[in-house]
């Protein structure tokens, strides 16, 4: 988890990508690129949007910082507080609940020693509950970064956790790359 006094700056590759994205919208409508750019900014900032990062995004898109804050706080994908290296999002809506999502949440919770919304003390994992991920036919479902894991069982959860621990899983990566 990082300090925010420093003004962030993207590398050339990322800035070029953002310039490309802005071109998808008409002249003067560069604000349209805000959601896509926030996906990138969050990935480049350890998985969350700090005020400093949001100000930087505002400057890139030539809009007011408040326009970024009000959007970032509206959408559930953007984290406004620091998160662990690997954010585990468990779907809890009806169809997943029918297929045992509560057991999956509880199993992650007991394996990691945290409740939904919390991060492990070593900063490695954050557990979150989320709403329907459009994968109800293969419930229960979780999302980690851009990956879906479906038809989960407690055994599968154990396997995934062992694997992620071994490889020091980081779920925030620039999703465009």
């Amino acid at each position, binding site marked *: 988890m990082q300090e925010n006094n420093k003004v962030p700056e993207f590398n050339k590759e990322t800035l070029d990508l953002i310039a490309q994205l802005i071109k998808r919208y008409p002249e003067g409508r560069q604000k349209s690129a805000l959601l896509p750019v926030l*996906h990138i900014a969050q990935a480049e900032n350890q998985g969350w949007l700090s005020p400093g990062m949001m100000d930087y995004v505002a400057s890139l898109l030539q*809009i007011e910082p408040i326009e970024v804050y009000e959007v970032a706080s509206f959408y559930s994908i953007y984290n406004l507080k620091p998160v662990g290296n690997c954010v585990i999002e468990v779907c809890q809506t009806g169809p997943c*609940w*029918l297929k045992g999502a509560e057991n999956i949440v509880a199993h992650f919770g007991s394996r990691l020693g945290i409740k939904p919304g919390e991060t492990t003390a070593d900063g490695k994992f954050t557990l979150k509950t989320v*709403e329907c991920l*459009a994968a109800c036919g293969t419930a229960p479902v979780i999302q980690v970064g851009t990956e879906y894991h479906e038809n989960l069982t407690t055994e599968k959860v154990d396997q995934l956790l062992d694997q992620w621990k071994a490889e020091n899983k980081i779920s925030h990566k620039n999703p465009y790359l």
Partner: protein
Amino acid sequence: MATKILLNNIEVPGLANFQVYRELGGYAAVEKAIKTLTPDELTDEVKKSGIRGRGGAGFPTGMKWGFIDKQSEKPRYLVCNYDESEPGTFKDRHLGQFNPHLLIEGMILGSYALGVKDAYIYIRGELFYVMKIIDKAIQEAYANGFLGDNILGTGYSLNLYCHPGGGAYICGEETALLESLEGKRGNPRIKPPFPAIVGLYGCPTVVNNVETIAALPWIVNNGSEAYAAIGVGNSKGTKLISACGHINKPGIYEIELGLPVEEFIYSDEYCGGIRNGNKLKAVVAGGSSVPILPAELILKTAAGEPRLMSYESLADGGFKTGTMLGSGGFIVMDHTTCIVKNLLTFARFYRHESCGQCSPCREGTSWMEKILMRIEGGQGTMKDIDLLVNIAKHVEGNTICPLGDAASWPVASAILHFREEFEEHVKLQKCPF
């Protein structure tokens, strides 16, 4: 076997590659339409096919296209609604992941008919990996002359872009989607004006669901009459049904509209019956927003007619004994299911997803969740049950967008059909399941 319009070839390995899609006859509809039909003739074909929007509302697509303001000097836009966030709905994810060129081909056809030069696919941010598959397919379509300047040498030019959302169910509502595409919070706009007049960037815009767009190539290739010959009544063509819950074979099925519900649930071609030979208890037939029906009313209408998978038949009986086809998200519950707990997960969903603009929706969704938590947790009273009905009644119809209704119907219908189960929670002071 039902006609395959949307899932045709979907199991072919590598279908997401341009070459494979093309060799199977892909992009023939674009060639045919751009070279032999005027935009108005194409719109007419879509009108005659009788296809209705597959995003949930079921509005006739050709008629919607007819509303677009053609007098305006402004550019026009076509936006594909790939927000797919209605609980129980997971068909669009599948289509775009395995057959992205079908969606692109449909977008070219729709854009040509509407005189659109820039079109967008707004896809929920959680499906980023699907967006990348579509993005790659779009690049292939450009490289092969089906997108970009002067398509197939006809002088028609089109750019197509994907745009990821940020995680918000409400952005599936078409005006919230447009706000979001402009880089704002997803607050639905007051209608009128409708997007066909004032849409994206204040310009005439059509918003269509993925599945609606993906049906266009078949309609062009086979003709509107062939499409209209499938189905019953005003439910023409095929529909993707995403079936989940306590069935033996959850998955995505393409049905000809008019298929009996009983056959859909019990036949091995579709859901394959209820798991472990359990008893069917209830079905939410069209995504979480539509009224829940108990087994006897989903299989047969109140008049005793077999219930069909069609807009009309599912709605037969109105709110009292019917429901809606909606998005085709078909959620099946067996006799082990607690209706109150299932409803509580829906109530939590709507509270979380309310954009907060209208007080009845913002406050009502939060009250309904709290009261349901109380009842499920064993602290509810009989008065709470009536209070829920009362809140639902006051939210419904009193909000800017239909999310207020969508949050109210599940509550009102669950209490209408399963009132004893709510009362049992209160009497026992705990959940009986």
